């Protein structure tokens, strides 16, 4: 009896992961030379690193059952700020730290408005996204920043340590750090408590506002940090360069929610979600299928992955 339950627990919990693995195996069989190589594994981890980091932030905000739609604009802003600072000759450490601090503050404002006035975070952060976009545009005059960016600024985005990209390492450090925070610290548990039942959390004496504001602030800071890494990787900063990450990051988070049966946003789930998206983009490009086919297959496989997890359940 106990065994049966445990067995069901496994198929339930890992259905999405299994689907992801199945896709990987298919690619590996079709293109063993190109896909199933160490170099490509490294390549994929580097490619998903930015998405994973920004999606960690989105996971925090989703865990309190709120939305932050400003992450894309925030990434753009972070990248642009850091690049301008690097061009202006600020020390590297400041270029990487100051924009997240600024972003943290903006996230704080998001969270404060949402909690103080009890308004929908969807509206507030969407409006904030517009404001940030306007600011970035004004700040850059709409132009890409690339001239005179020092080599040192590009280091983080391009360096390898023992053959492993620094970006990959940063990603894993952050994933493990935030997994630990969400799973094994009271801060993380409080976020989940708030997301699970805000009234219950409040009634039992949690400082709901404080933790909600913190979640928004951290999310913004991570988004800005992602933007900086992107600029560092590309050696240029585009005023809307991070915008594309917004929908993708939520796709990763939502896909990640289906990975474990609790159905709550969680860091490893988000990582798996981003990895599935990354493997699909990588594998389908390697297979050199036409663009429209790539879209059709990506969509179909994602649906299959989330459905797979539920089949046989009830």
């Amino acid at each position, binding site marked *: 009896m106990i065994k049966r339950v445990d067995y069901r627990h496994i198929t339930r919990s890992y259905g999405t992961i299994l689907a992801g693995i199945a896709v990987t195996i298919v690619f590996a069989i079709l293109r063993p030379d190109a896909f199933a190589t160490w170099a490509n594994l490294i390549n994929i981890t580097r490619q998903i690193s930015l998405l994973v980091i920004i999606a960690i932030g989105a996971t925090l905000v989703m865990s309190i059952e709120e939305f932050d739609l400003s992450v894309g604009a925030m990434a753009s802003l972070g990248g642009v700020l850091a690049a301008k600072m690097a061009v202006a000759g600020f020390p590297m450490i400041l270029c990487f730290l100051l924009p997240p601090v600024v972003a943290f503050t903006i996230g704080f404002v998001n969270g404060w408005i949402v909690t103080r006035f009890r308004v929908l975070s969807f509206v507030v952060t969407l409006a904030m996204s517009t404001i940030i976009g306007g600011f970035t545009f004004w700040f850059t005059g709409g132009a890409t920043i690339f001239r005179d960016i020092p080599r040192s600024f590009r280091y983080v985005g391009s360096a390898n340590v023992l053959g492993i990209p620094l970006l990959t390492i940063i990603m894993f450090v952050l994933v493990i750090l935030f997994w*630990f925070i969400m799973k*094994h*610290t*009271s801060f993380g*548990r409080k976020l*989940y*408590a708030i997301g*699970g*039942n805000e*009234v*219950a*959390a*409040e*009634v*039992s*004496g*949690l*400082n709901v506002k404080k933790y909600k504001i913190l979640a928004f602030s951290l999310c913004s800071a991570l988004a800005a940090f992602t933007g900086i890494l992107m600029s560092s990787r590309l050696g240029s900063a585009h005023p809307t360069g991070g915008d594309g990450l917004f929908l993708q990051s939520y796709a990763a988070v939502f896909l990640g929610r289906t990975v474990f049966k*609790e*159905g*709550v946003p969680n860091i490893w789930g988000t990582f798996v979600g981003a990895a599935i998206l990354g493997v699909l983009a990588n594998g389908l490009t390697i297979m050199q299928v036409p663009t429209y086919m790539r879209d059709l297959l990506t969509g179909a496989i994602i649906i299959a992955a989330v459905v797979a997890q539920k089949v046989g359940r*009830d």
Partner: protein
Amino acid sequence: MLLETRGLSKRFGQQYALKQVNLQILPGEIHGLVGENGAGKSTLIKILTGVYTRDEGQVLWEGKEVSDLNPVASRRLGINVIHQDRHLIPQFNAVENVYLGLEYETRGAVAIDWKQMRSAVERIMQELSIELPLNVPAMYLTPPQKTLVEIIRGMMTDCKLFILDEPTASLTDKETDILFDLILKLKQKGTSVLYVSHRMEEIFRLTDRITVLKNGELVSTVQTSEVDLDGLVALMTDNWQSRKRLTERRVGAEVLRVNRLASVDQKVKDASFVVREGEILGIFGLGGSGRTELLETIYGLRKSARGEVVLSGEAYEKRTPRESLKRGMVLISEDRRGQALIESLTVRKNVVLSTLDRYARVGVMDGKREIRDTEGQIRALDIKTKGVNQVVKELSGGNQQKVVFAKALLAEPKVFLCDEPTQGVDIRTREEIHNLLRAKAEEGKTVVFVSSDLQEMLDVVDTFVILTEGRTTHVVKNEDLTSEQVLSYCYAGTREKESSR
């Protein structure tokens, strides 16, 4: 004086929920708080625990005024509480829910020490002899299990005042006994208890003094020894006298037959019974015996694995709630907030929910008729609400239960499946519901009645079906039956099963 309120008032809109309340709680006493549904009991508790802010008046704790009362501050003062609406985090398991609002146990200052937390909870469970699965998220727990979680939470920290708002609403006798032992132990330790219940025998059994609320006003505080049931009821209600409706019922043709029913999840393993027109059939079992699941399986809310249901002589396969309603069978669910009501909608929209199509012509709602019928139900069941358009969330617990009943009545069913239908309702309404069910039976309707309150069952039902671990074991006529006899049947069922193993 441990706690005192002076001139406490609270308004919702223009309505006073509390008006000039002066409550006094002595150290080490068990203080009963009674009143009809909507009298303001829960509101008073929510003010004392800082969930609501008061509009006027003072709260004094050990003689000193407390100005800034919020849930954290109240807990720090030494007040633990079990609210009427159980407040649990659905995805968290019992251990984590117990620790909600407490400092988590940690190792090395940051990492949560799950093992230590679990063993702390297990220790308390053992002390109280509570059994509870600890790995299951709260959303899969039954209402009584949720109450147990809250009880454990209340016991995690020492407190000076333990407030319980209708803790026994869906507890079975065994769990109730555990709770009472605990309360008496607390009293011995010098802890005060504020105890809210609609079950008067509990009030008389436990309390030292009783405060009566009526329409938000404190009527009086009396010594328990100086008052009897009729006296107390008279204080709570205006000119109301308990009048058990005596009915002449003739049991007619068979209406519902359940034959060797089992649910997919095996909560129901093998249930059979027959119930006829004009009959009130009680299904009784110990906590977790699967009564709720049995009703849900009959109603079509839960998938069945085996067995058959015959309704009005027709085999009823492929059961769904929708089809059940169509065939004249309604379920009054035990889980009010989860399954019975849409809290964010108004009274009117809830009351007509099961009969929407009857109020629509070519899909367009007939608002006038809808309001007329809802108002009819509000009057008939004496639902305390500002009007048909008040949101159900804002009603007191007992009044919410009446809304559930009103919805079921509008569906004009032949068969009532009632799961704890009187939970949280005051004695007057409780009797009205009993009378109503009797009247329905007299009209030839059929009632299947489940309650954890055995005394209530003995009052109401004609026949008992005993359910043990998902199996029906005995059918007994309710003629000169005592609660001991009923319980012995339950245990007999368990024993038989064990001996057959």
